[in-house]
């Protein structure tokens, strides 16, 4: 029953993360969802994964969100939605009902449980390709983080062509002024 309580609270936290107007508040509600998910994973016997989820999902990702929101600014947008609210609620409820029917009613009984193996054996030997994929993903994540910290080189607003032509106009104007001054000075 504890896991049911944790899961219900996690769903409520997730809803609050979406409803929150401020981005910082949204990130903090998401951290709550991650922490509760880690607790549920621990209750389900996935102890190693629970620790990783708690440190990465709750810690690292939340720090990244807060850093990015501090850089980008916590701006609230006006209330206009992408799709009308009744349509969004209707589609989401339909999605939940169909998915719930599929997984809770129409799902066949699970097969008999085989003998359990060690996590390290499964992770390093059976899922070796996953480790390679994770290494590649981590490298792309590092590049992404460098992108987060990179400064803007292009001017804000306007295309590169506009900036080049405006710079050239300024240079021509300065040259013209110099020529005019040169014509005036001998007199």
């Amino acid at each position, binding site marked *: 029953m504890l896991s049911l309580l944790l899961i219900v609270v996690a769903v409520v936290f997730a809803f609050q993360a979406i409803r929150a107007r401020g981005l910082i508040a949204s990130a903090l509600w998401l951290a709550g969802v991650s922490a509760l998910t880690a607790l549920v994973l621990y209750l389900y016997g996935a102890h190693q994964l629970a620790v990783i989820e708690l440190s990465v999902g709750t810690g690292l990702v939340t720090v990244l969100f807060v850093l990015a929101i501090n850089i980008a600014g916590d701006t609230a947008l006006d209330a206009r939605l992408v799709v009308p609210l009744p349509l969004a609620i209707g589609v989401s409820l339909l999605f939940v009902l169909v998915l719930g029917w599929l997984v809770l009613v129409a799902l066949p009984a699970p097969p008999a449980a085989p003998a359990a193996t060690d996590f390290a054996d499964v992770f390093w030997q059976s899922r070796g390709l996953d480790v390679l994929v994770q290494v590649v993903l*981590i490298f792309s994540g590092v590049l992404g983080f460098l992108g987060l910290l990179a400064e803007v080189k292009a001017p804000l607003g306007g295309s590169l062509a506009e900036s080049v032509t405006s710079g050239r106009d300024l240079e021509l104007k300065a040259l013209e002024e110099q020529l005019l001054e040169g014509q005036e000075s001998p007199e």
Partner: protein
Amino acid sequence: MNLSPFTIALIGVVGLLGVGFYGLLVSRNLIKIVVCLQILAKAALLALVAAGQVTGQVNLGQSLALTVIVADTIVAVMGIALGVQIRRRTGTLDVRKISSLRG
């Protein structure tokens, strides 16, 4: 009502997927869309571990879920970096305003 742990996990999976999907439909802020993707990834995580537990292969479920955590974190980092750069260049995080395709 006596619910099995697998059923409880599935209820959580459906709930989190529903909330994440709803968030994707109504959110216009780029960083909030990344938050919605994170919620969807939590649901996938829970589903993998629950499936591993019910089939007696918790460690296989854990190792698959670990890949999901890594991928999910990278998606968050890339999405956040994209959002910050778009905000610097265009001054907004509104997905409607930054879209250059008009239909």
